[in-house]
C-alpha cells in the first residue's frame, strides 16, 4: 500500500495558473503587470510541483478531493509518480515558454487573451496530470481543448481559422470517443478510478473490452496525433511559435499520450492487456507511424511543418514503448515524455527565433543562419542530435531502454524500426544543420540580413536552458532526485515491481 | 303478462331514446361535414351554431341541463356572434 496524504498542493498547482489567467484578464492592456503575473504564477507553480518530488520519490501519494461529480465518481486529484512526472515536465516548460512568449509575442494584438488562455492551458494540463479518475481527467482534457482554441486562432486570419476549426473537429471527435468509452467503462466496472493497476478484468467480456480499448485509445490518440488521426497537428503550425511549443511539447499532444499511458497502465493493466493481445496491434501501428511520419517529415520544406511531422513520429515512440508491455519499455515511454518535450521545444523555439530574427521559415532558406545566430543554432544542433539518438543526449536514453524493452518482449523487429527511424531523423536534421553552418549567407540585394532585428534575449535564454536540459536529461539521467527516478517509480508501480529496474 | 308488457314497453322506450340520439348524432355529423366543405364563412358560422344547438339537445336529452345551457349560450350564441363579427371584418370567402 502506498501511503496517501491529503495535501492541498495539487489543488494549488492547478489554481495558481487559473488565478494567473484571471489576473491577466483583469489587468488587460498593462503589459508589465501581465508579464509579472505570468512569470510569478509560472514560478510558484514550478516550485509547488517540484516540492512534491521528494515525497513522491519516497513513495508518498498526495490526494485532494472535492466531492462527487457523479455517484461513485469523485472529482479530485491524486498525485502519483506518472502524473507528477508529467506535471514536472509541463510546469518546468511553462516557465521557459512564458519567458520566451513574452519576448516572441511583443507587439502582437490581444495579448491579455493570449497569456490568459496560455495560463488556463497549463492549469488544465496539471489537472490532467493530477486527475484522480478518468472523469476528472476528461474534464480537464476537454477544457484543454477549449482553452487551446483561442491560442491557435490567435492570428484571426483565414489560415488560423481553418487550422483552429480542424483542430476542434478532430479533438471534439476524440473527446466524444473518450466519453463513449468512459460510459462503457463505468457501466461495466462501476468505477473510473486511476489509482489501481487496472480496473478491468477478463470477466467483462471480449467485445466490451475491445470496444473500450478502441474508444479510449482512438479518443486519446487524436490528441496524441496517432496516425491517421493526426491531420490537425501539421495544420496547427500556423499558430504563433509559443503555441506550437504548447501543442507539441508542453501540453496538448502530451495530454493525449498521457491518456494512452493511463489507459494502458491504469485502466486495463499490463496483465489483462498482455492476455488480450490488443497491445501488439497498437505497437505495430506505432512502428508504422514512426517510419511513415519520418518520411513525411523528410519531404516537408517548411521548418515548422518538418517539426510537426517529427512530433508525430516521436510520439509513436512513446506509444510503441507503452504497447510493448515490458518494464524497461514502460520506463522508456515515460521518460520520453520529458525527452521529446525538451528536445522538441528547443527546436520550436529556435524555429521561432529564426523567423523573428531573419524572417525565414523554409528549410532551404537556412543557409548561413548559423553564423548570424550561432547560439541559437548550436541549441538546434543539440536537440536534433538528441532526436537522432546520439549518446549522452536525452533521445538516446529513450532509445536505449526502448531497445532493451523490445528485446525483453521478444520483438527485436522494433529495434530495427527504431534504427531506420533514427537514420531518417538524421536525414532530415543533419542537412539543416549543414546548411545553417556551412553554407554562406546568400547576398540578396535589398534583404540584408546583417541589419536584421535583434532577437530578444528573452527568447535566446529559454533556448539555451532547454538545450542544456537536453544534455542533462541524457548525461545525468540516473543522478538521484532527477525525474528519471520518478519515471522509474511510475514504471515499477505499473508492473507492481518492488525492486528497482535493471 | 303485464310485467312482460311493461318490459317490452321499456325496451321500446329505450330504443326510442337511442333512436333520438342517433338522429341527433347523424345531424351533428352532417353539420360537421358541411362546415368542412362550405366555402362561405358566414354560412359556416351559422352551421356551426346549428351544430352547437344540436349538441345542446344531446346534452339536455342525456340529462345534463347545466352543460346544455352552457353549450347553448357559448356554442350557439356567443361564438356565433364572434365569428360573424370577425367575418364581417375579413370578408366572407375562404381563400
Amino acid at each position: 500500500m502506498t501511503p496517501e496524504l491529503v495535501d492541498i498542493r495539487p489543488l494549488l498547482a492547478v489554481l495558481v495558473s487559473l488565478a494567473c489567467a484571471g489576473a491577466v484578464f483583469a489587468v488587460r492592456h498593462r503589459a508589465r503587470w501581465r508579464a509579472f503575473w505570468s512569470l510569478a504564477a509560472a514560478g510558484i507553480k514550478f516550485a509547488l510541483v517540484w516540492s512534491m518530488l521528494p515525497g513522491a520519490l519516497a513513495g508518498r501519494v498526495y490526494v485532494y478531493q472535492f466531492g462527487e461529480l457523479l455517484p461513485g465518481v469523485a472529482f479530485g486529484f491524486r498525485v502519483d509518480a506518472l502524473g507528477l512526472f508529467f506535471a514536472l515536465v509541463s510546469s518546468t516548460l511553462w516557465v521557459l515558454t512564458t519567458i520566451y512568449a513574452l519576448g516572441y509575442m511583443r507587439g502582437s494584438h490581444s495579448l491579455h487573451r493570449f497569456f490568459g488562455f496560455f495560463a488556463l492551458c497549463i492549469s488544465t494540463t496539471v489537472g490532467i496530470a493530477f486527475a484522480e479518475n478518468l472523469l476528472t481527467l476528461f474534464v480537464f482534457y476537454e477544457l484543454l481543448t477549449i482553452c487551446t482554441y483561442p491560442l491557435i486562432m490567435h492570428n484571426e486570419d483565414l489560415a488560423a481559422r481553418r487550422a483552429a476549426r480542424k483542430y476542434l473537429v478532430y479533438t471534439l471527435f476524440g473527446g466524444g470517443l473518450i466519453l463513449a468509452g468512459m460510459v462503457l467503462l463505468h457501466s461495466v466496472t462501476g468505477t473510473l478510478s486511476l489509482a489501481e493497476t487496472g480496473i478491468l478484468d477478463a470477466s467483462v467480456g471480449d467485445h466490451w473490452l475491445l470496444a473500450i480499448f478502441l474508444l479510449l485509445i482512438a479518443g486519446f490518440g487524436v490528441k496524441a496525433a496517432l496516425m491517421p488521426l493526426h491531420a490537425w497537428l501539421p495544420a496547427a503550425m500556423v499558430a504563433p511559435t509559443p503555441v506550437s511549443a504548447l501543442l507539441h511539447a508542453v501540453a496538448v499532444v502530451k495530454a493525449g499520450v498521457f491518456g494512452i499511458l493511463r489507459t494502458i497502465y491504469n485502466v486495463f493493466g499490463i496483465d489483462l492487456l498482455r492476455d488480450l493481445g490488443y497491445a501488439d496491434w497498437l505497437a505495430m501501428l506505432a512502428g508504422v507511424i514512426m517510419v511513415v511520419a519520418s518520411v513525411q517529415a523528410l519531404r516537408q520544406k517548411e521548418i515548422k511543418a518538418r517539426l510537426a511531422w517529427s512530433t508525430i513520429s516521436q510520439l509513436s515512440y512513446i506509444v510503441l514503448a507503452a504497447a510493448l508491455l515490458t518494464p524497461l519499455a514502460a520506463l522508456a515511454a515515460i521518460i520520453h515524455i520529458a525527452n521529446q518535450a525538451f528536445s522538441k521545444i528547443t527546436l520550436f523555439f529556435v524555429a521561432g527565433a529564426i523567423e523573428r530574427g531573419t524572417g525565414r521559415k523554409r528549410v532551404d532558406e537556412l543557409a548561413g543562419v548559423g553564423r548570424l545566430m550561432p547560439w541559437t543554432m548550436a541549441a538546434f544542433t543539440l536537440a536534433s542530435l538528441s532526436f537522432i539518438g546520439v549518446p549522452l543526449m536525452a533521445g538516446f536514453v529513450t532509445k536505449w531502454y526502448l531497445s532493451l524493452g523490445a528485446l525483453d518482449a521478444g520483438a527485436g523487429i522494433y529495434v530495427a524500426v527504431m534504427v531506420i527511424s533514427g537514420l531518417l531523423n538524421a536525414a532530415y536534421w543533419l542537412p539543416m544543420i549543414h546548411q545553417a553552418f556551412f553554407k554562406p549567407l546568400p547576398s540578396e540585394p535589398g534583404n540584408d540580413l546583417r541589419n536584421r532585428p535583434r532577437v530578444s534575449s528573452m527568447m535566446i535564454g529559454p533556448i539555451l536552458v532547454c538545450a542544456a536540459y537536453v544534455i542533462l536529461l541524457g548525461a545525468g539521467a540516473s543522478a538521484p532526485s532527477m525525474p528519471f527516478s520518478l519515471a522509474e517509480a511510475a514504471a515499477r508501480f505499473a508492473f507492481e515491481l518492488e525492486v528497482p529496474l535493471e | 303478462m303485464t310485467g312482460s308488457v311493461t318490459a317490452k314497453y321499456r325496451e321500446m322506450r329505450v330504443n326510442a331514446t337511442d333512436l333520438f340520439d342517433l338522429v341527433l348524432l347523424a345531424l351533428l355529423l352532417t353539420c360537421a361535414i358541411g362546415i368542412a366543405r362550405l366555402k362561405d364563412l358566414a354560412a359556416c358560422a351559422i352551421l356551426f351554431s346549428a351544430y352547437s344547438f344540436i349538441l345542446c339537445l344531446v346534452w339536455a336529452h342525456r340529462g345534463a341541463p347545466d352543460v346544455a345551457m352552457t353549450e347553448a349560450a357559448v356554442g350557439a350564441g356567443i361564438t356565433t356572434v364572434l365569428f360573424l363579427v370577425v367575418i364581417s371584418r375579413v370578408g366572407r370567402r375562404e381563400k
Partner: protein
Amino acid sequence: MIEWSHWLPILAMLPLVGGALTPLLFRHRPAAACFWAVSVASVTSVVAIALLLRLVDSGGFSYAVGGWLPQYGIELRMDEVGAFAVPASLLVLLSLVFSRHYVARAVDASRVSFYYALVLINLGGLNGFLVTGDLFNLFVFMEIFSVSAYALVATAREPIASLAALKYLLLGAASSLLVLFSVGVVFAMTGTLNLEDAAAALALSSPMPAGLALAGLATGFAVKAALFPVHFWLPDAHAAAPAPVSAVLSALVVKAGIVGVLRTLELFGGAESLLQPLLHLVVWLGALGALGGALMALVQRDIKLMLAYSTVANIGYIFIGLGLATASAVSGAMVHAVNHAVIKSALFLAAGAMIHRTGLRNIDDLRGLGRRMPVTAFGMAFTLIALSGAPPMAGFTGKWQIALGALQAGHPSLVAVLVIAGIVVLAFGIRVINALYFRPPARVAVASATEAPASMWLPVLMLTIASLALGLAGTPMLEFVGPAAQSIYGTLP
C-alpha cells in the same frame, strides 16, 4: 401557526392572483408592474424553496383542497416531480428581472402590464400543474399555462410572432383536446380523477380503452413537450417570442409537457404490457429528435432559431431517458430537465440582451460582440459549452446517466447518438463563440454597442454560475430524484 401544507395551493394561487391583479393595479405604470411581478415571483420562489426544504426534510406531503378527501376533492401533493416548482419559480423570477428593459422596447407600452400578468399566470399554471395530484386539475392548469404561453408568444412586435403564436395555438389546442378526451376515458374506466387511485384502478383494467387513454395522454403531452414528429410548432414560437418569454417557454413550458408525460407514466405504471411498446417508441423518437434537432440547429443563421432547435434536441435526450425506463436513465432525464432549463434560459436571455443592444439576431451579424458586451458574451459562450454536455457543467450529469441507462438497457447505439449530438451542439456553440470573439465587427450596431443594463446581464451571469454549480451538484440532485425515478414505472426493471 398555519399548517405547513397550506402553502402548497398558495404556490399556485399567489402568482395566479398576483398576475390577475397586475393589469388592474399597474395598467399605465410599466415600471411598477415589473416591480410587482418581480415581488410576486420572489415570494413564490421563497414559498417553493420552503416547500422543497420541507420535502427534503420529511418526505412528500399532500393537501386536500377545500378539506375534501382525495377521491371527492382535489389533492395537491409535493413530490420529487413537484419540486421542479423551485427552478420554475426562480427562472421566471430571473426572466422577469430581465424583462424590465427588454419589454420596454419589445412590447407596446400600453400592454406591458398584460405581459407581466401573463408571465405570472404562466408561472401559476406551471406550479399548479406540477403539484396537482388530480387528473382533471392537471388539465385545467395545463390550459392556464398553455393559453398564457400562446399569448406571450404573440406579444412580440414582429409580424412573424402572431403567425408563430397561431401555429402554437392550433397545435396546443388540438393536444389539449386530446388530453381532455383521454381524461374522460380514464374517468369512465375508473370513476376517479385522483392520479393514485386511477393508477391503481388502471392496473387492473382492460387493455383497449386504457391503451386509448394512454396514447391520447402521451400524444397530447408529447405535443406540449415538442417530441420529435410533433415538434414543428416549437422553433418558430420560441424564436419569435420576446427573449425572456423564449427563456420561460424553452426552459419550463415544454418541460411541463414532459412532467405531463411523467404523470402519464405514473398513471399507467401498473399496466406494464401497455407501457412497454410506448416506451420503445419514445426512445427512438427521442433519439431522432436529439439528432435531428442538433443538426437543424447547426444550419440555422438566426441565433434564437438555433437555440430553439437545440431545445428540440434536448427534449429528445430527456425522452430517451424516460423511455429507457431504467432507474439511472429516468433520474438522468429528470435532472437533465432541470439543468437544461437553467442553461437554455441563460442562453435565451443572453441572446435577448444582444438583440436588445444591437437589434441583430443573425449569428454572422453579431461578430465581434464579445468585446463590446463582455459579460453577456461570456455567459453565452460558457453556457453554450455547458449545453453540449461537457463535464463538469450542468449539461453533463443528465446525459451521462442517460447514457449509462442506455447501456444497462442494452442500447449501446444510443450512447453514440448522445455523443454525436453533443459534438454537434458543441460545433454550433463554437460557431457562435467564433463569431463573438474571433471575428471583427461587421455591423455598425455591433461596433457601437455597449454592455446591456445590469437588469439583463445579472440574470445571465447568475444563470451561468448556476449552470456550473448544478453540474458540480450532480450527485445530490441524482440522489434526490432517485427514489421517484425508481417508483414511477411501478414494476419495470
